[in-house]
């Protein structure tokens, strides 16, 4: 189990800075996701760590050892490509055994290792097939088996599930998790799908325009996003902006109370609240005496039904949109056109950087 570190990595292409002094560390044996929109630099960072691309500046360290100058073919990394990159003229067996042969493992030993890897990805029996005879999901598993069979120091995955349909993707996410835990490999996973990042990761690093915006455990980032970007990219959020007063942030419909540390009085501040943290409670504009719950009046605009949950779109007093998420435990709590009061706890008001 290797600890991987990226220290001040810089990389530019044609004058565009794709990675801007990026530093991150990846815990041994854990799965860390690099999450971000396209162009954020996440794939470039992955390729720098793997050795596919040399950084303009900075160091990559495996367990403290500087490997920045070590060429790709000696770095012993396992990579699963977005396109799977299976060798079309070789069978599944030959594909998986390729790396073993390069490391000097041949014959019976290679066959055993290959069988073990294929069993781990649940593809036993398909050894003689060629890649074009396999389904997308099967090809993906072969790519995974091929990457892990050589016991690499780090496992890298570049949006490997993006070509699969939704159901298959969800199944593979869970399976991937199991395989990763079973193999104990330090794993770095690139994705633009925030749900995927939340499901799979022990840690998430959010990238935007070549910088790491926030990193940490999924729950930590989700509950306490630091910036507007982090709040909107990982999940959904409602934003309330206003001036700081005694007791909270003053907005059009009242004062938003928070348990976070407030900036100086008079300064402008933005509060983010996750949709599922707000609930509809009758039409009372003010909270009961002894509670410091937040209350906000709003008008229901639309209810989007999705089986287990419903997303309710509302409009606040000053016309800004609000989105809440409720479980459909009983019948709908409101109808379009209703004037309702939204309530949420101050713990869930998160002060974010602008």
């Amino acid at each position, binding site marked *: 189990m290797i600890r991987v570190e990226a220290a001040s990595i810089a990389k530019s292409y044609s004058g565009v800075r794709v990675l801007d002094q990026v530093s991150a560390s990846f815990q041994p044996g854990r799965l860390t996701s690099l999450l971000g929109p396209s162009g954020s630099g996440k794939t470039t960072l992955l390729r720098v760590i*793997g*050795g*596919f691309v040399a950084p303009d500046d900075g160091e990559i360290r495996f367990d403290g050892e500087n490997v920045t100058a070590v060429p*790709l*073919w*000696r770095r*012993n*990394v*396992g*990579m699963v*490509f977005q*396109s799977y*990159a*299976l*060798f*079309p*003229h070789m069978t599944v067996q030959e594909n998986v055994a*390729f*790396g073993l042969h*390069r*490391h000097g493992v041949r014959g019976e030993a290679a066959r055993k290792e290959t069988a073990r890897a294929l069993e781990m990805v649940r593809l036993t029996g398909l050894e003689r097939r060629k890649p074009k005879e396999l389904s997308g999901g099967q090809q993906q598993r072969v790519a995974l088996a*091929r*990457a892990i069979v*050589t016991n690499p120091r780090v496992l890298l995955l570049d949006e490997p599930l993006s070509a699969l349909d939704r159901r298959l993707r969800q199944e593979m996410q869970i399976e991937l998790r199991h395989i990763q835990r079973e193999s104990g490999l330090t794993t770095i996973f690139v994705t633009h799908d925030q749900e995927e990042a939340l499901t799979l990761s022990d840690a998430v690093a959010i990238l935007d325009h070549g910088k790491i915006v926030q990193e940490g455990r999924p729950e930590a980032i989700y509950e306490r996003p630091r910036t507007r970007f982090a709040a909107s990219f990982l999940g959904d959020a409602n934003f309330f902006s206003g001036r700081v007063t005694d007791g909270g942030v003053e907005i059009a419909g009242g004062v938003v109370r928070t348990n976070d540390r407030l900036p100086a009085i008079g300064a402008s501040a933005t509060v983010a609240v996750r949709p599922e943290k707000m609930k509809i409670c009758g039409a009372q504009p003010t909270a009961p005496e002894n509670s410091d719950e937040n209350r906000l009046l709003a008008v229901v605009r639309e209810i989007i039904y999705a089986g287990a949950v419903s997303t309710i779109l509302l409009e606040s007093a000053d016309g800004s949109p609000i989105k809440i998420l409720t479980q459909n435990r009983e019948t709908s709590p409101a109808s379009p056109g209703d004037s309702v009061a939204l309530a949420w706890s101050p713990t869930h008001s998160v002060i974010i950087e602008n």
Partner: protein
Amino acid sequence: MIALGRTYLLATIAFLYLPIAVMVAMAFNDSALYTLPIEPSLRWFASLAVNAPLQSATRNSLLIASATSVIATAVGAMAALALERKRFRGRSLLRLLLLPPIAIPWLIIGTAMLVFFFWTGIGRGIHALLIGHVALAIPYVVLIIGAGLQTLRADLEEAAMSLGSTPIHAFFSITLPPLLPSVLAAALFAFAVSLDQFVISYFLSTPGVSTLPVEIYSSIRKGFTPEINAISTIFLGVSSALVLVFAQLSHLGGKRDSR
């Protein structure tokens, strides 16, 4: 309208094959003066066996074509690799430089070669013919292998390297195998280009050393010899066979079917 189109097409093809059919028929005609009607005979094929100049010219043609094929394919493949895979300054210019041998009339190139080789002492003969033929074949080889390289995927080589292949090993075990049909097609093409080449060979031949097309030309100029029909028929057969093999290797013609 479709039937009209098809009829016209077949008529055009008939026009294309008319003289060829005549020539093949004449090869089997006993008459030495191409008089009709045709009296079937194999005597011209037989007399080929004792026609020393024709035989030596044929040997030269085959020798040069084989050598051209090997050299042009090797040299052209290397150039195609460099041109297709890496982006560098001057790449488009280099691509453009491949055009002159194909675009400039062979008369000009042939005479230029004659002038230059004579001046620099390279002279004429088999070596000069080889130099000329290879030069003509190179652009075609680069084109064909270049087209084959475009279907190649860079991520396969990266995958191989991530698994421990050095760049050279990755090239030979991953990049080369799918390229083999293109390489073979290019080699065949180079062979055909050399075998068929007349103009350049004409200027670079000497009275004692020439290729088959040149020999045929001088025979025509000297006077009709029916043996020419015989050797041409054989030539035609060989060329056609080459083209068919080449077509098989590159799946020419027709609408492309989806994979």
